[in-house]
């Protein structure tokens, strides 16, 4: 990406749409509708027929539901089927005066009552009700009402085809990209924690925000795994499994939250100055390792020398031992416990990062090139 564009992405787009996943979905939905319109005009279809053709196309992408790729396809077809049945009935009922209201009532009740079965049922119900209401307010005799179904099916299937077959997802690319984002966000969280060590004015709210961004990225990775029919909870250190890399991320995130839980150690205490400096410097080096890892591309990533990182943590520990906290009385007990906790969790972060890099090598078939942090 050119430098100027990269800046625009980082400043304006990254905070709202990391990885441009949502933009791609929106672009895809728009293209599906455009393709349906183009084909409709080329056939040529006009007037009310084109309108119903486009209703079908929009219906396919607008009321998208299902947690997996396969289910999304299935629910798309189910919705089109439901709509094709309901639309002619609603069109005829629309001309039946107040009697038609009975159908509206039944449809609305079914939509809200069955919606309680889950999110998918609710979205399908709403989609069906909305399209049925469009037909209801445009009454028609039986034959033209039935023709609406044909136009809806045509436009909807075309849009469906573009969505799922002409422009499908590449699972490995999507997973690698979302993994990179998750590592990047965890690195940013660590940078925030690093800043907090020396500057107590960095608020918990700000760190909470960074933490929420990191967990949202991990969740995104999990959602993509699920949508590609990979069970994220499948796997253990002993038996391996597809979810192992996800577990690695969770483990790392937990350690970062652990550091967050102790990060206020020695606030306002002069005697903790050296320790804070050592902690800052160690954490900063680990942060650089995160940045390098987040740059992983298909086939390769930059692997730091973990001996150096562990040595940095050992050095912080030595500084802490030399402070002889246990001799400083009960008042300092909480401060020292927090400091020990922070160091312990920082060590977990390094270990977690090391484990995750090994897991990434297996999961994405990467090869690490050894570099300093």
């Amino acid at each position, binding site marked *: 990406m050119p430098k100027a564009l990269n800046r625009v992405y980082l400043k304006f787009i990254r905070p709202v*749409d990391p990885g441009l996943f*949502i*933009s791609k979905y*929106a*672009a895809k*939905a*728009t293209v599906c509708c455009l393709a349906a319109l183009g084909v409709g005009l080329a056939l040529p279809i006009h007037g009310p027929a084109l309108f119903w053709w486009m209703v079908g196309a929009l219906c396919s*992408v*607008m009321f998208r539901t299902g947690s997996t790729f396969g289910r999304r396809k299935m629910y798309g077809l189910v919705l089109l089927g439901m709509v094709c049945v309901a639309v002619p009935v609603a069109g005829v009922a629309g001309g039946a005066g107040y009697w038609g*209201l009975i159908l*509206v*009532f*039944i449809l*609305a*009740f079914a*939509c*809200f*009552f*069955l*919606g*309680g*079965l*889950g999110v998918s049922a609710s979205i399908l119900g*709403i989609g069906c*009700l*909305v399209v049925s*209401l*469009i037909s*209801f*307010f445009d009454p028609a005799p039986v034959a033209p009402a039935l023709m609406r179904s044909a136009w809806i099916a045509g436009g909807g299937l075309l849009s469906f085809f573009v969505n799922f077959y002409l422009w499908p997802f590449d699972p490995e690319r999507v997973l690698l990209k979302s993994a990179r984002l998750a590592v990047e966000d965890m690195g940013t969280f660590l940078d925030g924690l690093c800043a907090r060590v020396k500057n107590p004015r960095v608020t918990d709210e700000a760190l909470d925000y960074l*933490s929420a961004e990191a967990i949202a990225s991990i969740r995104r990775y999990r959602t993509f795994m699920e949508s590609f029919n990979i069970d994220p*909870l*499948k796997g*253990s*250190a002993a038996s391996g499994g597809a*979810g192992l890399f996800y*577990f690695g991320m969770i*483990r790392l*995130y*937990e*350690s970062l*939250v*652990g550091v*967050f*839980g*102790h990060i206020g150690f020695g606030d306002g205490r002069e005697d903790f100055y050296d320790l804070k400096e050592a902690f800052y410097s160690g954490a900063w080096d680990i942060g650089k390792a995160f940045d390098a890892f987040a740059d992983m591309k298909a086939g390769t990533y930059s692997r730091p020398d973990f001996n150096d990182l562990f040595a940095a943590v050992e050095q912080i520990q030595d500084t802490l*031992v030399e402070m002889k906290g*246990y001799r400083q009385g*009960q008042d300092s*007990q909480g401060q020292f*416990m*927090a400091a*020990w*906790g922070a*160091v*312990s*969790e920082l*060590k*977990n972060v390094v*270990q977690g990062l090391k484990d995750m890099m090994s897991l990434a090598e297996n999961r994405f078939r990467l090869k690490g090139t050894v570099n300093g942090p």
Partner: protein
Amino acid sequence: MGLNPMGNRFSELKLSSPMFRHALRAAIAITAAVAMVQDLGLSHALWVPITVLVVMRPSLGGTLQISWKRMAGTLVGAVAGVGLAYIPLPAAGVAGLALVLLFFMFYFKGRHYLAFTIFLTADLVLVLSAAFPHAWQSGAERLLDTFLGIGIGLAASFLVWPNFARKNLREAMGDLISAQHHHFQALCQAYFNEDPDSANLLSGRLAARTQLDACAEKCADAAIEPGLRAAQRQELMNLVEIFTRNHRTLTALASIVKAATGTFRWDIRPDLEDLMGRVEMQFEQLDAYARNGEEPKEDPKFKACFNRFMARLGTMRARGEFDRLSLDSRNSASSFILQIDRIGTGLEQARAGLSRIRAAR
């Protein structure tokens, strides 16, 4: 939902069921909206029932939340749409602009309802203005129809078995406390185990997170409903913050548990188990108090127990009883104890917050 969700659903087909009432309420409102637009002969008849459909939520607070977003979004979108329609553009320019708006409508769908409504309305008004004369008329109609739909939705929510979100808060809060309690129990057991089951721990935390999100949403819905005092609304938000903090502490605890190697064999273990037992008692009492206001028979005295524990720890350390243990093991134990203290303190704060909400009634 169980093994047979469809069967469970049909067992809800009774007047006392909240789901049945919600479906009936929504169906009445939508049918009334359709009948009204037919009588009034509105030109865009669909807009009114669609608005009703969108704003009808199971609770009154939920309906109020979405209604104001729909209203504000429609107002801004209609004004923007009319403004765009008055820019002299060729047909291709209008189509391009409509596509850009369509893109942003999809962009915000399911993520930001206010922005979604703004782009939806602006796009609709722009397209209609291109097809019919008097651009402002499309905007004004859209506005009026939306207001009418919101009015019908709100009237139904207030008049047909009004379901106040605050009435369901006890159960939501109880479920959240129970989920956090179960996760805490699993973490404590895992801490004393050789090989903690990571998948089980993670699914426990995900369950707790789901309950936290549900409870936070219900609290937000309840806070917007009429009938609560300002102090109670604030206290509800504070409670959500406390439970969120507790969730974070449980996450940190999970990190410690997974990193701790080897069974905990220190002499301090019985005291630590006693401390954990106090926290469990706090969870149980808070759960009962949140659900039915049941006052505890016995005070867990967490703080006193914790202070006693720390004093004993200090004595043992002074005697050098921990010197044989590795630094990592000691660090891990320190962090663990600190997190236990945080959870215990958080639960005390939650208990006090709940008492204040009840006292303010």
